[in-house]
């Protein structure tokens, strides 16, 4: 019974991952992250992702503050924030977030404030979707680990 539950949870995880890949939310960089997880850092993926969430929320907040400011004109600073966001997103394999960042950066380089605002909204949306899905993934993972009573690295 226990073994069956573990298998089911594993299947759920894989299904979710497949969906996220199919949607283009994640790319192979996320798989590389999973491969980096080993005995020396058994929670590597969730650790990195939680760092990413924390950083990203800070960045999104900053971006929104910048754009909400009526006096706003510091596109360079915004570009750096976007670049930062793009770097961390691509590093965890958040493909769709990254593509939105590219568009965002293009808009900010053209000093296109409206374009920036649109991009920011899409970005926030994509980020939320990613966050929810990854949370879901980690929850299943956690259940799986508890069910199996043994922690072993994700097999990919």
């Amino acid at each position: 019974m226990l073994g069956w539950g573990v298998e089911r949870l594993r299947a759920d995880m894989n299904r979710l991952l497949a969906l996220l890949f199919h949607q283009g939310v994640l790319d192979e960089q996320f798989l590389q992250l999973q491969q980096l997880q080993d005995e020396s850092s058994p929670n590597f993926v969730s650790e990195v992702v939680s760092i990413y969430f924390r950083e990203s929320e800070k960045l999104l907040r900053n971006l929104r503050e910048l754009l909400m400011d009526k006096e706003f004109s510091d596109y360079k600073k915004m570009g750096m924030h976007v670049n930062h966001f793009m770097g961390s997103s691509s590093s965890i394999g958040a493909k769709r977030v990254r593509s939105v960042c590219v568009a965002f950066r293009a808009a900010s380089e053209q000093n296109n404030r409206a374009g920036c605002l649109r991009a920011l909204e899409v970005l926030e949306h994509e980020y939320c979707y990613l966050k929810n899905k990854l949370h879901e993934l980690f929850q299943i993972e956690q259940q799986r680990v508890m069910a199996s009573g043994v922690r072993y690295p994700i097999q990919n």
Partner: protein
Amino acid sequence: MATVHKLQVSSLSTTASSYGSSKADGAVSDQFPVGMRVLVVDDDTTCLRILEQMLRKCMYLVTTCCQATVALNLLRERKGYFDVVISDVHMPDMDGFKLLELVGLEMDLPVIMMSADGRTSAVMRGIKHGACDYLIKPVRLEELKNIWQHVVRKKWSGSKEPEQSGSMEENDRHKQGGDDAEYASSANEGTDGSWKVQKKRKDTKDEEDDGELENDDPSAAKKPRVVWSVELHQQFVSAVNQLGIDKAVPKRILELMNVPGLTRENVASHLQKFRLYLKRLSGVAQQQAGVPTPFYGSVDSNPKLGSLGRLDIQALAASGQIPPQTLAALHAEVLGRPTGTLVLPSMDKPVLFQTSLQSAKSIPSERQVAFGQPIVKCQSNISKHFPQSHLSVEDFPSGFGSWPSNNLSTVSSLGSLGNLNTQNGNMLMQIFQQQQQQQSVVSETSHGINVQPSCLVVPSQSPANFQAVNTSVSLNQNNTFSSTPVIDYGLLPSQSNSVSVGLSQVPDVDFKNSDVLNGYSIPVSLSPSVSSFSATQADNSTSWQVQNSAINFSTASKLPGLVPNMCEFQGSYSPRAGDLSNQGRSRNLGFVGKGTSIPSRFAVDDFESSLDELSYLKTSGDNNGDRVKQESNLDFTENARVGIPVLQHYSPNDLMSVLSK
């Protein structure tokens, strides 16, 4: 999470602290690039954490830091600790380029920039500021696995040239890593000899050819180093653009830049680096493994000897191990040689030969002696040897084993000289003479040997490698003396104390030819080694080979005509061998400084008499002679074996690195 906390709290976490101790040990260096110390700077903690994990997977020692200013302080406090720096481009407290500039000015470390911004303009900016590489996020594990090449390259080039062979890696490491005192010392010794050679070569280059940009590095050894600030570099770039990259020669660039105090050598060296950068950018980047070759290859384009000299010099300079004095001596020798000597038509052989080719170019002589190879070998050898300091003669078994003394004698194919090692122990001089077909084989052996000395070469130690060498030799068609000499150099420098020179002669091959070649090459490599050896070599037997080689070199360099002499000598191999050995010893010492022409004799004798010599060697109490003879028969296989042992002795890392390359 622990790591994360560290980062947050101190912004600086050294995950690999435990590794540090191991690094100090020689073992680490041996396994290069395992244990390479990497500093990662990025304000993006997500990336930082991922990079840290990736680098640890690569077996590097990772230190992470999320502030550029902290990183800079760390670098200043622990100068010589880090081998390479990976830095993000955009950081709030300090621009990554600023950090890059400061690091370049203060510690001359290879700096790899990274950014999510992969647009050409951004990458170009990184290059202009002197980044040795530019990684685009997301950084992949495969890319990080390869970053050790920058460390090696940097060391090879010293501050000067980026083109280095794998062998340089170890040297570089030694230089950079103050930690490896052991290695450093050994490396320094070895390098000293090599440095000298390089310097000499540089001198020659300078004298001979302005066209050769690649070898300019020597300037470092000669003169105070020029700091290529961003402004200076941009002046340089605009001058190059004005001239066109293909037509830009240091002299013209210098004129256009019109900067007081800047020398043609500075510009040439920088131009070479710049070209390499461009190549790398274009994806043509030369592989590290092939580094020696590629570099040489590039050199090859320049027929001048100077190029060879420069290469060596550069490498030496890079290693920083070569003493000025030695350089001077080497220059004298090198210059002489190049002029007369070697022309390596066969340089085709890519890597090793390339160097030789350069020399060959410079050497008008048609003999086709490939000095470049020797040079290359020397460099590589030096670097490898130094770190490892001791070559294991054991592999060479019989002969070496008997040579209980430290010396390793590798007699490759014919290996008459191989036994000489006894005294030198450390230094292995392997002189291979190849004659056309047979020669080709022989040359291969010699190449292989050369490889062995140098860490990089080591991979070639395997039979396959040898073959490759042979091929190159065959290319040379003409005898490839250079190859052997090179080997000698490398060994000598590294082992200054114990030099084992293995001269492998192809039995079938015409000794005369081979001798001649040997003579040529020898002079090049030998002189450096000799100089170093003379002091170190207490033992006569070992010194013999070395000395002989040295002698040859000197003669060769000075006397192009020596070659003929060599041929003559060939006739009287065995007797001469004995004589030579004796003479060689005495002469060698003398030669080092003087560069007498004795060599001619010795070269021929050694090779031809290899067997005889071996016997002689035996007389000296070593079994080497027997073994040597055997080896000669075996030619390739033996050589390969020899090389392998050597490799083994060297640290595994070295071999690994070579192989990987």
